[in-house]
């Protein structure tokens, strides 16, 4: 543990480069601890994002040794090769500076996928009764814990190939709403998530599911959307 580690951290914008910092090694040290040490002790101009530090807020995702990860819950010991860490901003998002990306497009795509709940009841109506173990609720529950960190979006090759592809997180969100018994936006949402910018562009490579820090399965959600949109297409609703 006394040996230092060397953190090569991306500095600048898209045409920037890596700069290496020597950081003391500690037990149970996370990648976010390393970045924070650099910013507080070695170079206060380093820009990065974090908030909760406990894996809830989804703001600290970065590319660590080539893999997108939530850095606050990623232990250095788990990902370090030799004594070097290579820390870069998330892929497929414009770099604002250093480790900070512009996530507007990522969240705009949630809107484009009709990721907002569309209710049909008013406060005068009775509560909706949803059976917790109904297949629809089970399918929705499987995807609702998304923290919007962007790891799946950075891990997805199709996002890199198709600028308009909605991406795994937005499609996962749409799938939870398709399975929400209270939601009335179904047809419009299925139209929004179908086609080459939506679920049909997915190649089922499964990188999103492999790297999702919350262990969700956007690949399964997208497969569900493909089935749902195929049925809608048969009914002529697309």
């Amino acid at each position, binding site marked *: 543990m006394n040996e230092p580690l060397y953190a090569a951290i991306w500095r600048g914008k898209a045409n920037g480069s890596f700069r290496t910092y020597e950081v003391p090694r500690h037990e149970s040290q996370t990648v976010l601890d390393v970045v924070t040490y650099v910013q507080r002790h070695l170079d206060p101009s380093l820009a990065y994002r974090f908030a909760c530090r406990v894996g809830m807020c989804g703001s600290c995702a970065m590319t660590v040794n080539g893999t997108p990860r939530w850095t606050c819950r990623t232990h250095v010991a788990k990902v370090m090769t030799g004594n070097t860490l290579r820390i870069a901003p998330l892929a497929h998002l414009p770099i604002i500076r250093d480790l900070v990306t512009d996530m507007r497009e990522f969240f705009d795509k949630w809107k484009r996928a009709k990721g907002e709940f569309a209710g049909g009841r008013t406060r005068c109506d009775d509560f909706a009764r949803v059976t917790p173990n109904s297949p629809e609720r089970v399918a929705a529950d499987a995807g609702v814990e998304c923290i919007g960190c962007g790891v799946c979006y950075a891990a997805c090759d*199709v996002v890199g*190939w*198709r600028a308009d592809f909605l991406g795994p997180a937005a499609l996962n969100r749409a799938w939870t709403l398709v399975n929400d018994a209270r939601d009335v936006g179904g047809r419009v949402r299925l*139209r929004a998530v*179908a*086609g*080459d910018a*939506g679920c*049909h562009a997915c190649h089922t490579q499964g990188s999103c599911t492999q790297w999702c820090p919350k262990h969700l399965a956007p690949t399964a959600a997208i497969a569900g959307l*493909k089935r749902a*949109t*195929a049925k809608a*297409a048969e009914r002529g609703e*697309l």
Partner: protein
Amino acid sequence: MSTVATQVKLWYWQRLSAMALAICVVVHLAVIIYASRGGLTAGEILGRTHGNAPFAAFYSVFVVACAVHVPIGLKTIAVEWLRWRERNASIAAVIIALALLVMGLRAVYAVAA
């Protein structure tokens, strides 16, 4: 730019044709391996295929499935990897579909008629 409904239908057709191809390829390979165990000449092959309606029907389905499946996949590759415009990729896909259909059915006709 094709409509969403068309994109979904194309995706669906590609999946359906993939199912047909899965069966066709297995049958095709099994027949080749079985029929050519003791050596087979071109003349012997033609002797079995000429006027063989089931043979013609099977390979016609095979050709049609290829003509549907291959161009849709190539279009995706052209757009995603070669960065072609959607419209140009679609035109190329239609040309490839027609070429596969004409050349394939012509071959089936030549061997089975």
